[in-house]
């Protein structure tokens, strides 16, 4: 990515200060193109799934030919494909994701009710995971090659290679079935407050999601810290008499965190992809479970609505990651100034 961007950056002969804004504009433009491509993929999938249009899905199997034709005329499904695509785009721009076949409500409503609960679960899991992964990675880097490093590296390696539902299942067997410490079912309810009212039920879903995130992010943190420990500024600081813990706290951690924070933006689709598994394992009433039940009932408008929401979140997330990285690390600003 960077080579072409640098080449493009060289071509735009903007004055120094405004180059950041050029860079930002170009990244936003790229993001919009990516979202447009996602709509194309989504629309193509919709047509692959329902070459005859959604009439039968909405009206039911018993619908007569006349009813289907009337529905198609009314909703524009008798138009040429390219015109249907433009209408679909127009709907999306207005924030209209269509109507669910099975839930008897607009897709945007259904997602709006489920998404906050998924975000809460994802956010708690991420915070818990980072609170463990960052110190773990630093500890491993400092103790590189020692027993502790080997044990933690092996642990993360095994967790990384374990399907998350198997991991969750082991947690259920041990902590819910044998030790009776926490319930195996996630809290139910329509709102975020309902879910948060029973924190014990959140322990296992959060632990399952967090273990996977820890395995990934402690690896990043470990290698970022190892890279930084061999930098000249560490030797300089040590030569000036600064103690090792202070050098790590003041210099190394700050510099190592930058790439890890940037990773968060790119991690969003993986995170959402993982949530679908965690939510269906623990029956957590979030967007992942909504997607899963919709796949079972072939409720395509809901499936595609969920994908659009995630794709937009991902594009915005990676844009934010780039901006945050630029703000935190003045060196990366050099790429576009």
């Amino acid at each position, binding site marked *: 990515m960077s080579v072409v961007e640098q080449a493009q950056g060289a071509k735009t002969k903007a004055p120094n200060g405004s180059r950041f804004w050029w860079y930002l504009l170009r990244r936003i433009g790229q993001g919009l193109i990516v979202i447009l491509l*996602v709509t194309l993929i989504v629309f193509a*999938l919709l047509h692959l799934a329902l070459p005859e249009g959604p009439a039968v899905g909405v009206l039911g199997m018993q619908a007569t030919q006349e009813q289907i034709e009337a529905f198609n005329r009314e909703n524009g499904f008798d138009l040429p494909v390219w015109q249907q695509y433009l209408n679909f785009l127009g709907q999306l721009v207005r924030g209209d994701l269509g109507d669910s076949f099975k839930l008897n409500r607009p897709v945007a409503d259904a997602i709006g009710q489920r998404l906050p609960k998924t975000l809460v679960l994802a956010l708690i899991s991420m915070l818990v995971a980072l609170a463990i992964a960052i110190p773990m990675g630093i500890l491993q880097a400092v103790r590189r090659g020692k027993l502790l490093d080997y044990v933690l590296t092996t642990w993360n390696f095994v967790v990384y290679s*374990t399907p998350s539902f198997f991991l969750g299942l082991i947690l259920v067997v041990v902590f819910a*079935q044998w030790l009776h410490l926490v319930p195996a079912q996630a809290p139910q309810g329509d709102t975020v407050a309902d879910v948060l009212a029973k924190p014990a039920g959140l322990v296992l879903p959060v632990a399952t999601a967090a273990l996977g995130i820890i395995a990934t992010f402690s690896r990043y943190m470990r290698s970022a810290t190892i890279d930084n420990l061999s930098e000249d500024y560490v030797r300089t600081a040590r030569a000036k008499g600064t103690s090792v813990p202070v050098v790590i706290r003041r210099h190394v951690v700050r510099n190592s965190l930058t790439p890890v924070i940037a990773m968060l933006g790119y991690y969003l689709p993986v995170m959402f992809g993982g949530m679908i598994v965690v939510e269906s394992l623990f029956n957590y009433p979030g967007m992942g479970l909504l997607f899963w039940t919709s796949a079972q009932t072939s409720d395509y408008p809901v499936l595609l609505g969920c994908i659009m929401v995630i794709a937009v979140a991902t594009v915005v997330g990676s844009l934010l990651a780039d901006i945050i990285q630029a703000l935190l690390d003045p060196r990366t600003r050099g790429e576009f100034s």
Partner: protein
Amino acid sequence: MSTVTLSAPPTRSPRQRGLRRFLGNRLAVFGIVTIALFLIFCFLGPLVYPTDQVHTDLKSTMLPPGAAGHPLGTDDVGYDVLGRLMVGGQISILIGLAAGVLATVIGTLWGAIAGYVGGAVDAVMMRVVDAGIAIPATFLLLILSAIMRPSVPLMIIVIGFVSWLVPARLVRAESISLKSREYVLALRAMGGTHSRAVLRHIVPNTVGTIVVNATFQVADAILLVAYISFLGMGLQKPATDWGAMLTSGITYTYAGAWWLIFPAGVCIVLTVCAFNSIGDGLRDFFDVKGRNA
């Protein structure tokens, strides 16, 4: 110079040194041995230990391990668990390998062409990759499986088509730096075609990146097979894979039927660990950047 080299150990070629590093890497050796054992277990095992994995046996369901004739017990419809691990493993490993190779081939060609051609073509091709990455693989897999009836070839194609994006990015980055090398420029000056430049020079020179990444792709593909089965979109009985076995065992967790969950789960974890450690070893061997260490 000559006096120094007399006392120094014999010089080794980079490849020899890489091979020593690879074999010195105990994890990589563990990976290769594990895969070899699993291949023997899954593909030769049924010859030594034949079981009926097609017809159900409702007279001997849910037998615990150690029951007569069933060392690992039987499942809810009477299939022998040990024999089923072999049959399921064949499917898991087959889909993993085939989908990993497919993803690598698509990704390599896509990335090599995008990087070699550059300009607007590159920009469009890489935005397509960005768009693919913005859609979580599990979501795409669920939709495609909802549209089409699951079968082994379909699962290979579907997993291959959601996994080629990362290799495409990696190969593109290398392709950009390779296309301005002298030997590629010389080929072009002598009238060589673009396809020859890509297929004979760019792709072979990224072989390290490709091989390392392909190994990780196989590991990821085996995990994805398990996820598809867990999400209820996998193969239908009597066909099975380790993920499907594990998933159908979940129902009996509270009945204490651990033998329906743990053997299949451990098989998945061991195989995926093995492919990942081979990938780590190969990364040291080729000395390339792959996944973060």
